[in-house]
């Protein structure tokens, strides 16, 4: 069992408040999409969950196997140790390490070290391209391959909850589609709880159970199903100014 409950969260940078009084939850085994265009607070929210940004107010509770942890105020390293992993926006690979080194470093977490060989095999099976390029430097790969590596690297830490920030960034449409499908596939195989921030609305909804639309740091709409979100006008207005 693994879930995240965010209540009355407020956060920002310096004097600028990006998120106000935001509450939401990700229940165990769900894939939840966080929708909205750039600059509305999706990344800020993700940063708060990962401890990269300390929230000004509110709480972020993570429940993993019956134990509840308050994430607000915890250090990133400790949050990762709980079994929460993030695939960051822009992938943030270690460009001068090889594919395999990038994967291995993903398994730094104690629990993950023991199952390193199994997880590497899993990644290579899931992403055959990575196996072909195992000795290549991560920085020299194409965008799609990099996104696969970033996903694989996050999985290496044996997470229970996976956060993904903008997986479609910089990818050609076909690759976006494949990446999104891959996420669904991995989630299934690894029994993960997934929170995915994504601007690509339709692609995200293909795999999401539910979704929240964030506008100016507040939840503008909470859709209990993909269909509900699909039918909402707010999205088109927000996205295309129509």
């Amino acid at each position, binding site marked *: 069992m693994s879930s995240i409950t965010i209540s009355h969260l407020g956060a920002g940078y310096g004097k600028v408040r990006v998120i106000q009084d935001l509450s939401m939850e990700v229940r165990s085994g769900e894939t939840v999409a966080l929708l909205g265009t750039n600059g509305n607070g999706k990344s800020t929210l993700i940063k708060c969950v*990962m401890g*990269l940004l300390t929230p000004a107010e509110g709480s972020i509770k993570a429940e993993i196997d019956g134990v509840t942890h308050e994430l607000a105020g915890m*250090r*990133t*390293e400790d949050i*990762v*140790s709980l079994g929460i*992993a*993030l695939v*960051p926006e822009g992938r*943030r*690979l*270690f*460009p*001068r*390490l090889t594919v395999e*080194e990038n994967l*291995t*470093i*993903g*398994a*730094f*977490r104690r629990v993950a*070290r023991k199952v390193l060989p199994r997880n590497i095999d899993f990644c290579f099976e899931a992403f055959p391209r990575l196996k072909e390029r195992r000795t290549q*430097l991560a*920085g*020299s790969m194409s965008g799609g391959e990099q996104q696969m590596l970033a996903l694989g*690297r*996050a999985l290496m*830490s044996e997470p229970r909850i996976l956060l993904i920030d903008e997986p479609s960034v910089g990818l050609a449409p076909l690759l976006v589609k494949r990446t999104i499908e891959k996420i669904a596939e991995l989630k299934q195989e690894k029994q993960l709880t997934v929170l995915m921030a994504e601007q690509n609305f339709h692609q995200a909804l293909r795999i999401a159970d539910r979704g929240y639309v964030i506008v100016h740091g507040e939840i503008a709409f909470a859709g209990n199903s993909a269909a509900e979100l699909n039918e909402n006008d707010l999205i088109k207005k927000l996205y295309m100014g129509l």
Partner: protein
Amino acid sequence: MPDPSAVLNAVVAGVLLGGFYAAVALGIAIAFGMLDIPNLSHPAFVVMGAFATWVLNNTFGIDPVLAGLIMTGPFFILGVLLYRLYHTCFESRGEAPLQGLAFFFGILFITEVVLVLTAGADYRSVQADYIGVSVNLGSVTLPLRMVVPFVVSIGMLLALQQFLSRSFTGRAILAVSQDKLALQLMGVSPTRIKALAFGISIATAAVAGSLLIIIQPVEPSIGRDFIGRAFAAVVLGGMGSFWGMLIASIILGITESIVSDMWNPSWAPAIAFGFLLPTLAFRSGGLLGRKL
């Protein structure tokens, strides 16, 4: 046309010398190349390592290389503490580069003076069976005094290379300069990793110091002679790359050796450094550095 065996001898001597330079530069390759910490005082720690080796050798008759290895422990702790100070004062405030340089200049002075005050200004040297002995391989004469440091240096480099590429901590050290935030997302504390890596970098100074005192007697102020050479080797080698640094050290060594032997020793360091300027100007990534 110079005698081929003379050339061979000069080249071999240069390789051995370069191996020793690599031992001094290794710590800088880690601190400066991988962690972005401009530790100008590293050579002073090398001299401190030499004095520590002298104490152990002189009082307990411990073999210098072994003494150097023993001292890696205390030096590691010293390095961790120094990094903590550096981190709190500069890195965490985000004003590292310029102030950091001056900070390490200050540390260089302090280390030197502490040595003068505690160990005196006299020359210190160690005793070991291999000092003063040579072996002959065909027409090449190898003084063990240079061979032992070369072997230890290469050994240390290999061991560290293995540590960096095989262990989790090692890989985290390699990664920390590339993307601190991403490393945090792997569950690693960048500050802890950097402290550890800096500790290792200072620990290598203990070994390099023991090698230095095997090669020649030391007195507190000689560390300054190595600042230029060691930094040059690291920059020429492409900052974080051990192999690049080793090759650059050996190039420096061979140049010095050949120029000394065949032409005029007086110009040896200038020519070695002469390499550095054009390399910096036209190939700023160094000789070998992983591309990107």
